[in-house]
């Protein structure tokens, strides 16, 4: 593969620029980062067109969101891109934690059997974006407009008017819906005058991508207070094509201009990896973490997603992954609203569910940051005590917090959740609101069944189907031509869904989250759960 970081996208004058009155588009996405691109691809998977605007002309300038979690890979599988990401990415499962000069802890993300995807892969953000752009081209439904920037937005009850600047003059379009995926420094957020309050961490981190053909294992190494970065932390991650990601905590007082000078960064790299290593820099960046979110994600016809809606410290890889899940949550809802199959208030559930996820991720990443860079003497004393005990005490290893790695949020309490006929505490991993768990079937994966529509699955060891259940299939088909009803009788899958003995019926949403589950089938119950999951009750 050529170095995709050097690709320069050209501005192409669109026919919209030559129209007397503004052209109208159902969906305009602002921002061609992972979140905007996944939203566009998900909409395209449902046959829906979109315009994607970006003021840049390049892919991400550095590795940025390097860790893609299992849930994101499953979403990308649904969009047909999971395998390409896994093939290029680095699959890792071992993490090592060092304190001073000693290894105090090693964890293994080795997943239980019967999941198609690993817990994580490392892949530079620019490759992720490149795959998405290639896939977008193939859909024929996504109109990429590079070097175009939104300079003004006006909203009415039924849509928005966008003023757009291009190298080839300004123009105006109207949209039913605007997805604001324009990143941490969101232009749309500023144009709508929205506050983005929260906490700024004073600590600064130097982030480097280096190219280094070195045979080291694909492991995540995290150092607390190492000799080469005394009093601070450091992180090493392997990425695709011999690129390594290094993070150095450099403290509150570090001088930005000095730190990002290659000769100074190189000194840090050599101190970490050895004086004699050969490497070149691909990217050097210095930043402070923010922890904040918008008070509301939906503002009329503008819906915020990803970093534009919430920003968090990077420990745990929850920025990129939660942004991809935002897109996953939004696309099917927007599609149903545009098709008139669900009322507009279905989109309020996007806000409710993804704000819940953002709050969960913000709380978890803030705890990680406080562990990694303790504030005050006593915090450091406790932190160092945990690390010291971890060398010999198993319980203390659980307290070591170098980032709690991203997992899907369960939409507990969502208004879209239907009945849960399981006993309290029974099989909680797949309760309504939770993302589906994968399982291996005869020749495919369970998640292959959940390919973008509503889906009912009867988990039943004996494979017998109540005749009345067959009739529910027609109701499902009303939402999606692909929607269907399936029977799964394989043992591990049944065990994972609490159907080892008694059959269990599940309804899954288009984003693969559980909508409802039953022990028996009463005619009409699937239909009622479908109404609830589409905000029609």
């Amino acid at each position, binding site marked *: 593969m050529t170095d995709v970081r050097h690709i320069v996208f050209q501005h192409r004058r669109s026919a919209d620029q030559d129209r007397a009155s503004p052209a109208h588009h159902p969906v305009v996405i602002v921002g061609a980062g992972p979140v905007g691109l996944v939203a566009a691809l998900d909409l395209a998977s449902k046959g829906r067109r979109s315009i994607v605007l970006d003021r840049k002309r390049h892919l991400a300038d550095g590795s940025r969101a390097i860790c893609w979690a299992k849930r994101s890979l499953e979403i990308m599988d649904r969009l047909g891109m999971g395998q390409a990401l896994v093939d290029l990415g680095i699959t890792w499962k071992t993490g090592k934690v060092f304190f001073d000069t000693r290894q105090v802890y090693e964890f293994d993300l080795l997943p239980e059997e019967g999941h198609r995807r690993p817990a994580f892969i490392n892949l530079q953000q620019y490759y992720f974006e490149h795959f998405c752009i290639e896939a977008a081209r193939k859909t024929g439904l996504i109109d990429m407009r590079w070097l175009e920037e939104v300079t003004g937005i006006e909203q009415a009850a039924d849509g928005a008017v966008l003023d757009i600047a291009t190298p080839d003059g300004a123009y105006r379009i109207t949209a039913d819906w605007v997805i604001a995926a324009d990143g941490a420094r969101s232009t749309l957020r500023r144009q709508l005058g929205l506050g983005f309050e929260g906490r700024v961490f004073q600590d600064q981190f130097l982030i480097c991508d280096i190219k280094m053909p070195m045979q080291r294992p694909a492991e995540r190494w995290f150092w607390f207070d190492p000799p080469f970065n005394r009093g601070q932390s450091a992180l090493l991650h392997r990425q695709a094509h011999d690129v390594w990601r290094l993070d150095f905590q450099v403290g509150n007082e570090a001088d930005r201009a000095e730190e990002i000078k290659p000769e100074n960064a190189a000194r840090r790299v050599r101190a970490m990896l050895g004086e004699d290593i050969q490497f070149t820099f691909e990217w050097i960046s210095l930043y402070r973490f923010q922890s904040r979110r918008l008070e509301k994600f939906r503002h009329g016809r503008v819906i915020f997603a990803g970093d534009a809606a919430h920003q968090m410290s990077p420990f745990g890889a929850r920025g990129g992954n939660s942004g991809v899940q935002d897109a996953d949550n939004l696309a099917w809802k927007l599609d149903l609203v545009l098709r008139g199959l669900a009322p507009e208030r279905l989109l309020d559930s996007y806000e409710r569910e993804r704000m819940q996820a953002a709050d969960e991720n913000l709380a978890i990443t803030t705890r990680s940051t406080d562990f990694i860079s303790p504030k005050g*003497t*006593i915090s450091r*004393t406790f932190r*160092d*005590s945990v690390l*010291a*005990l971890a060398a010999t005490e198993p*319980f*203390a290893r659980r*307290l070591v917090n170098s980032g709690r790695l991203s997992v899907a949020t369960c939409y507990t309490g969502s208004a879209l959740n239907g009945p849960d006929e399981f006993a309290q505490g029974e099989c909680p991993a797949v309760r309504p609101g939770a993302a589906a768990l994968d399982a291996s079937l005869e020749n495919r994966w369970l998640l292959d069944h959940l390919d973008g529509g509503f889906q009912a699955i009867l988990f039943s060891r004996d494979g017998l189907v109540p005749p009345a259940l067959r009739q529910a299939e027609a109701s499902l088909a009303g939402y999606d031509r692909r929607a269907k009803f399936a029977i799964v009788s394989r043992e591990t899958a049944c065990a994972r869904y609490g159907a080892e003995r008694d059959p269990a019926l599940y309804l899954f949403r288009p984003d693969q989250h559980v909508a409802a589950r039953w022990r028996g089938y009463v005619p009409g119950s699937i239909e009622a759960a479908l109404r609830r999951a589409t905000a029609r009750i």
Partner: protein
Amino acid sequence: MHLKREPNVGDFDALYAAVIEAHSDLSESESAALNARLVLLLANHIGNEAVLREAIQIARQSIEAK
């Protein structure tokens, strides 16, 4: 379960002495580190969040009441 607030140990004087003895020859920062390790070890042993929160609250109140 609630935090036990009535006497719950056989030989209190020996227990107290053992805690003080553990700190002998330690600097102030080492003592703080020892206390932190003890809190963590005992908290895990107790293993009940409600009980721990109760203990935290009582300890905190006793300082603020000074």
